[in-house]
């Protein structure tokens, strides 16, 4: 098994997991304010595409990432306006945005780059790889943890930051309150819609970063529908992690690992389509173990009994 579970497998796990983790954190913060954001997939796709567009026109990676964040942010404002302001069904809005994103990116790909299917340009610069001093010299661990894009490291810092924000700060506390019992929160003068908008915008930023990592970190290109379900996997990671940043990281790691493993297994003469099923089988099995353990159910149960 040594050659199967070597350092590069774990390194690629980290790379694969970053887009999922970033989006799942966005999904978690939305779930915490009571908005189940099915539109993660679309938001990542928008981020991935606009990162390439930014890269192509500015030639600057930082500007490209900022443009990705900005575009996903704009897209998430649509989600927020529809679901918070117009009180549309969040699931419907999310699905609509996913299809909109798919169509929009495919169309723009042809309109801007005049290509079909994929855009690649050798002049484009991907995200830099950071070697972490000291860490990179540690055998094995250095191979796994060092040499990733800044977004990989940022995502881990974000986990810690969000965990602190949600459970240790006053604003985070109010955010949790708005999700748990919006009526009660409103009756206390907490501005629930403002908090919901905030959460949706943060989600937009995170999905923009996820998209940038996808199109500039893992590879340096954009292909139609290149998210290929990562947004939905992120959604599952959100639920599995109980919308808890640390928990979300753990479940994202599981999916990222299965993702990396499935690619690795292709080298062992296993059919591609079989190995590609692996992450999803694990998802279903994981859901079985976590049935009715969510904090939302818990809240709902106790709400019922107190009526």
């Amino acid at each position, binding site marked *: 098994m040594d050659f199967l579970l070597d350092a590069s497998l774990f390194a690629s796990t980290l790379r694969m997991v970053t887009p999922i983790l970033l989006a799942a954190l966005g999904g978690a913060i939305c779930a915490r304010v009571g908005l189940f954001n099915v539109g993660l997939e679309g938001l990542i796709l928008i981020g991935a595409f606009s990162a390439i567009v930014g890269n192509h026109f500015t030639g600057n990676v930082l500007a490209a990432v900022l443009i990705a964040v900005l575009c996903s942010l704009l897209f998430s404002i649509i989600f927020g306006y529809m679901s918070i302001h117009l009180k549309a069904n969040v699931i419907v809005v999310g699905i609509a945005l996913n299809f909109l994103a798919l169509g929009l990116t495919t169309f723009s790909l042809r309109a801007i780059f005049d290509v079909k299917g994929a855009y690649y340009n050798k002049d484009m610069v991907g995200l830099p790889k950071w070697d972490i001093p000291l860490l990179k010299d540690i055998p094995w661990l250095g191979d796994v943890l060092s040499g990733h894009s800044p977004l990989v490291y940022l995502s881990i810092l974000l986990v810690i930051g969000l965990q602190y924000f949600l459970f240790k*700060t006053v604003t985070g*506390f109010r955010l949790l309150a708005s999700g748990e019992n919006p009526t009660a929160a*409103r009756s206390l003068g907490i501005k629930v819609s403002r908090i919901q908008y905030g959460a949706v915008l943060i989600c937009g930023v995170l999905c923009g970063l996820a998209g940038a990592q996808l199109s500039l970190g893992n590879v340096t290109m954009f292909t139609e529908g290149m998210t290929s379900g990562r947004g939905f996997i992120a959604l599952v990671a959100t639920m599995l992690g109980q919308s808890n940043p640390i928990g979300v990281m753990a479940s994202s790691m599981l999916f990222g690992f299965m993702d990396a493993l499935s690619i690795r297994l292709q080298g062992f003469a296993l059919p591609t389509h079989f190995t590609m099923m692996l992450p999803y089988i694990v998802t279903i099995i994981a859901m079985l173990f976590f049935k009715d353990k969510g904090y939302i159910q818990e*809240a709902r149960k106790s*709400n019922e009994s107190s009526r």
Partner: protein
Amino acid sequence: MLLQMDSITKSYGSVTANSQVQFSLNRGEIHALVGENGAGKTTLMRILYGMESPTSGEILLDGKAVSFASPADAIKHRIGMVHQHFMLFPTFTIAENIVIGREPSKGIGFDRKAAAAETERIGKLYGMPVDPWKKVADCSLGMQQRVEILKVLYQGAEVIILDEPTGVLTPLEVKELLVAIKGLAAQGKSFVLISHKLQEIMEVADRVTVLRDGKVTGTVDAKDTNAEDLSRLMVGRDLIHISRNEASRGKKVLEVAGLSIKGAKTKPVLTNISLHVDEGEIVGIAGISGNGQSELIQAISGLMKTDHGVIKLLGQDVTGASVGSIRERGLAHIPEDRYQWGVAKDATVTENGLMGHTDRHQKLGILNGSGIRGMVSEWVSRFGIKTGSLSTKAQFLSGGNLQKLIVARELAQHTPFLIAAEPTRGVDVGAMEIIHGELLKKRDEKGAILLISSELTEILKLSDRILIMYEGQIVGELDAESATEEQISLLMAGGKAVG
């Protein structure tokens, strides 16, 4: 005078919820606000709490005109409200629930230790101790009520509005609450108390204002009035004293023998329950809520699986049968929690009335709309259900009116057996009178009724026989003629029957 509401009028389109209402409150006073369901009490208090703005009229606080755009404004002016349905966060701790909105902080951090200390301090100060670190979901309803009041006090309220605070409490918790309110009033806090329970009002209130159809029909000193005068002001006429006819018992309708449910916890939920209800009698089950009554009715109506025992309806074994088939054989059920079991909130009055009556009003699967509307509108007029129209959504009806709709619907099944669980919870005296009258009428028409109620007066008024439940067992059976409230209370609390 601390607070004055002057000529408050509130209209929604053509409906006037409050008309020229005058209401005042002195410092340290407990001022009760009573009236039938839909008389406009809650609307008036929502205006005071900034949740609604009045169409005309003004609010004076310490003689100065104020207007509240939101509850936050009202809180700033030291007005707090405890809602009928608790506004709590069940997965949060007591301390978190109390300090929310004005949390003690360290930088951007939420200082939970300080919150707990502060909670402990005000709990002691106001004589309502709580465990700050306990989750609200794990608290009894009485404790949750206490958390609500402490929250309002923590916000600095001088005027506290209590909307039906005792509706869900056990008799002991009610007593504690009333003592606490009196104590706070003695410390200078002022209370507006909305309640249907005239006895409680007579016990604590200094003054009483009665609303009927949005207008004030009288403001009186509590010491110059009595429960009967108040109900006359509320209903606008004298209440008819329901006379009970002699019970004429027939054959057994419901028989339960040796019924037990183990339940998930270590204590069994129901232990060896045996009872029977005969034609033409009302059997009342008294008990503090949570002693197995809910499980018993769920078992009888087929909603809950049983472990041992036999349930027979009209001589047929229905143990483990489906809800549908039990109802078909002759059971109607007024459920205890109207929102969870009784109605679909988003469905209209007509649709809610139709539930369970679909078979009678269909031909080849097509519903007969006019027949259904005729049936429901007959109920609306007979029970005096206040609703905008037949197509109003159930969620917009007040609790009492919803309850009347459910009672009408279940009585219209004309089944030999009826379970009536808390049939008048949250219902005003006028509606209570109608519901009680209808239940007794059903009994006189040879119906068998199993009545479950946490209101002793209701049990004593309606029942022919009284069973008392304690910790999942029937601990006593009393004849309604000779039973006294003391006897029942003692058995309900787990004591032994005397005499």
